[in-house]
């Protein structure tokens, strides 16, 4: 058991060192791209508000960081979630998707909100406000379904 003490010391030093390594933050400084979701499809104010609170932290170019996001390794963990989230779906660049992709993203939004797989439980655990109420779920599902239908009519 004599290795425990130096082991802990090394861990502490490593923890201290990694505090100085901070990943790039996901911030757009209020800049709205011409390919942003709101620029390419109709998004009612109430739907946009829900998307902003519950989805945009990982699915847009702008994250609202909580204070503890500065603490490592939390920042790495968050950065990797944001990277993965944006790869999957980025509302800030929704207009870059082809029509087929837009339809398929909207369908996946409906699916994951219905299943409750999104927003991630590990996210809503810390962000209680991001948790979707049943009314909010219905709003999102109806909006995404309607938008998807309008896209397939446009073909």
């Amino acid at each position, binding site marked *: 058991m004599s*290795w425990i003490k130096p082991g802990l010391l090394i861990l502490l030093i490593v923890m201290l060192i990694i505090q100085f390594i901070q990943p790039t933050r996901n911030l757009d400084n209020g800049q709205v791209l011409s390919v942003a979701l709101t620029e390419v499809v109709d998004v009612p104010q109430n739907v946009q508000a829900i998307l902003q609170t519950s989805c945009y932290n990982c699915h847009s170019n702008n994250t609202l960081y909580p204070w503890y996001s500065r603490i490592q390794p939390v920042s790495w963990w968050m950065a990797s979630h944001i990277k993965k989230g944006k790869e999957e779906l980025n509302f800030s660049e929704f207009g870059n998707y082809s029509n*087929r*992709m837009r339809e398929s993203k909207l369908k996946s939004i409906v699916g994951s909100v219905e*299943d409750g797989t999104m927003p991630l439980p590990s996210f809503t655990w810390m962000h209680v406000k991001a948790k979707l109420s049943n009314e909010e779920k219905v709003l999102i599902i109806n909006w995404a379904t309607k938008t998807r239908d309008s896209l397939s009519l446009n073909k």
Partner: protein
Amino acid sequence: MKTLISSIALSTFFFVACNNGNQTTKMDKNTSSTSTVDQGTKEDLKTAAGSISGLLTNYLQIKNALSKDNDQEAATAAKDMVNAFGSFDKAALTTEQAKVYNDIEEDALQHATHIADNSGKIDHQREHFEILSKDIYDLVKEMGAGQKLYYTNCPMYNNNKGANWLSETKEVQNPYLGQSMPTCGTVKEELN
């Protein structure tokens, strides 16, 4: 001194463990890429329908796995499909076909990847299979199937919203409801 040695030993152990992990993933990648090459050389085909036959085989494998409620097999077939997209030969396609193909590939590849990554979550696999089916249907419509296919509809899936899929058999084997409702569905269209 003893403690120092043991802590060094411990950290070395972690390093070695990490490195081993990397090696195995590298090896996995190598083996999968060789199998892709093999597939590519085997399919020395000249027509557009010929080019997509590999993709269709994988699609039907996913479909059959899902109708047997087998998430593992669906994931394996989807992984093969991802590789098949990687080795797809566009040479036989016309410019117009290539345009349609590129549009579909981008989307279909994502859904195949999700099915491959989600063994253990068959419901999630089925959601992606639904959109994948639409993609493959559009692909077949554009390029021909080179084989008889049945575009089948199950009206009950997803709270009676319904969903479609392609099958090589006229006899219905439902990939969305699986063994709980194996024969639910009707053939909407026959494709060649």
